[in-house]
């Protein structure tokens, strides 16, 4: 029943450890608080989280301070950042502050949508394939592999050309539907590994159904891993969205960070030394993703005791 490599179980060492009987019973805290304890002390996690939270707050609140709509011209083009236009205006007279803050919001929205869809689809498919195995697994793996091989950019161009206009929902869904394979693979591998654990057998012996077992026994043991995957997914969604928008494949009539960079490139902002047009969106995008990645590394340390610097 156990999948240990040794021929017969080794005697009791791991379970009792040093602290012996009664004291250990009093001393050790429940495991979940341990994560919070270490989490609050991990500099990378704190840094990443703080930056991200600030940016999200900015995305929510800052657009309210914009005096102009992002795509309404102020009729005062090429203004340096100053007291009237905090981040200046571009060649078309659009207010850069307004574009940046609204763009930040849109980028977050698209990133979140993409990550959400990818997570849901990836989880379902990963759990199904991992739990059932057999031919269902083979079929789902086939689908996954095919999807991974299709170049999503080309697909986007082809689909995009049939649509008259593209919405945020479309872009988010598209990103979700093209990035779920990564989630599915991770979930499938973990599920495979976890389903042969003895506590899963015990749940079966207690008359539990597969759905209950997957949700209550397996998923919580993957929770930290899933968390990390989802955070990474969020970051990559935003980056992918930015690259689509940069190429002009983003949602129509929507300002996002990628769109801003697209405009900066097509209006030769660099050539005209209009740094306030392309540096802010690039810097903010970099910061968004960077903070997430740093937080992710920190979170990995929190969940995995062996990585902690003692």
């Amino acid at each position, binding site marked *: 029943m156990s999948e*240990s*490599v*040794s*021929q*017969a*179980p*080794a*005697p*009791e*060492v791991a*379970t*009792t*450890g*040093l*602290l*012996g*009987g*009664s*004291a*250990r019973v009093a*001393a050790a805290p429940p495991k979940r608080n341990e994560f919070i304890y270490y989490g609050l002390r991990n500099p990378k996690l704190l840094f990443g989280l703080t930056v991200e939270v600030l940016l999200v707050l900015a995305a929510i609140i800052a657009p309210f301070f914009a005096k102009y709509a992002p795509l309404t011209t102020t009729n005062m083009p090429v203004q340096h950042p100053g007291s009237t236009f905090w981040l200046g205006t571009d060649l078309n007279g659009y207010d850069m502050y307004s574009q940046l803050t609204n763009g930040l919001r849109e980028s977050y929205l698209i990133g979140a949508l993409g990550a959400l869809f990818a997570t849901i689809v990836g989880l379902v498919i990963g759990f199904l394939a991992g739990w059932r195995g057999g031919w269902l697994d083979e079929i789902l793996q086939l689908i996954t592999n095919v999807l991974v091989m299709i170049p999503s950019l080309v697909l986007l161009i082809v689909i995009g050309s049939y649509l008259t206009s593209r919405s945020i929902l479309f872009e988010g869904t598209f990103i979700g539907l093209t990035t779920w394979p990564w989630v599915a693979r991770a979930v499938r591998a973990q599920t495979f590994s976890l389903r042969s654990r003895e506590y899963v057998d015990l749940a079966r012996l207690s008359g539990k159904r597969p759905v209950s077992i997957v949700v209550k026994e397996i998923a919580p043991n993957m929770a930290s891993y899933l968390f990390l995957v989802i955070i990474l997914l969020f970051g990559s969604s935003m980056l992918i969205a930015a690259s689509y928008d940069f190429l002009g494949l983003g949602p129509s009539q929507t300002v996002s960070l990628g769109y801003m960079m697209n405009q900066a490139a097509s209006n030769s902002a660099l050539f005209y030394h209009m740094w306030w047009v392309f540096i802010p969106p690039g810097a903010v995008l970099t910061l968004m993703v960077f903070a997430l990645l740093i937080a992710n590394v920190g979170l990995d340390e929190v969940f995995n005791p062996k990585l902690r610097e003692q």
Partner: protein
Amino acid sequence: MSVSVEKLSVAYRSRRGDVTAVDNVSFSLADGEIMGLAGESGSGKSTLGNALVYLDARMKTTGGKVAVDGRELPISDNNAMRHRRMTEVSLVPQYAMSALTPTRKIGKLISDLLKSHHVKDKDAVYTELSRRLALIGLKEDVLGKYSFELSGGMRQRVTIIMSTLLNPSLLVADEVTSALDVSTQRAVGEMLVEFRDRGYIKSAITITHDLSILAQIADSIAIMYAGRLAERAPTSVLVDSPLHPYTQALLASLPAVGVRHDQVTLTGIPGRPPSLANPPSGCRFRERCPFAFAKCTETPPFEEIKPGHLVACWKVSQEQAETAATAPGLPLKEQV
């Protein structure tokens, strides 16, 4: 004396302060002696054995010294120890057979080992290696295999071969027979004895919880309880006439083949070993000991009751003193 350990104490660092896993332990091994170090989990036997060879980052010595072949062993100095490992002292850690790197062939693991110890005459070592493999019934093609291609017993024997290839004076074997089938257990046990008989190792400390295996292969047995030595005696003496109440209870709880529950009811020992983070004062077994009395709140000394037989128990010391006092033939003024 091949090995001598004097008042050794080893502690673990933990968030809540240091936990002393080995408390003031002293013993010595003669050349060619295989000592069995027995105890239950949490007794500190693994810590003691491992500390003699490799103190990992969590452990530290808080007192005492160790000497092998007359020279002091700097166990707390990792750099100095690196030169002494494998050549003077060697360790087969617990779960070693599960810890062989699965991506390298056995032969490669051995050549890595030789390289890291700057062994000059590789050919001589390889000849010796083939001889030893044949001795224990492993074919030479095992060198070309990966660890997962071998059975548990074969892997265990490979780890012992690797640990003893450079002929250490002291081999510490931690639970090497525990996870094996009965027939392989015997093969591995006899392998240790054979290696000692042929001089591949000078002396050995076998750490296990299984007293019956020790009865087969060990020359002497030391029983550890809650970080301290409770009893140490030659094997036949300990098995036939144990003195410490813990040893007696332990032996009484072992079922022998042929004994059935309707013939003899075995009893365990009520209670549990004390926590090493906060051990009780005095004798650590007193809370579970049927013979405990007032003096047991003081720590009993680990003293020689009979030649070669050391016990840490007030009851035993008292009985010994009484026997000596009433021993016939002693002039009155020499009585205690």
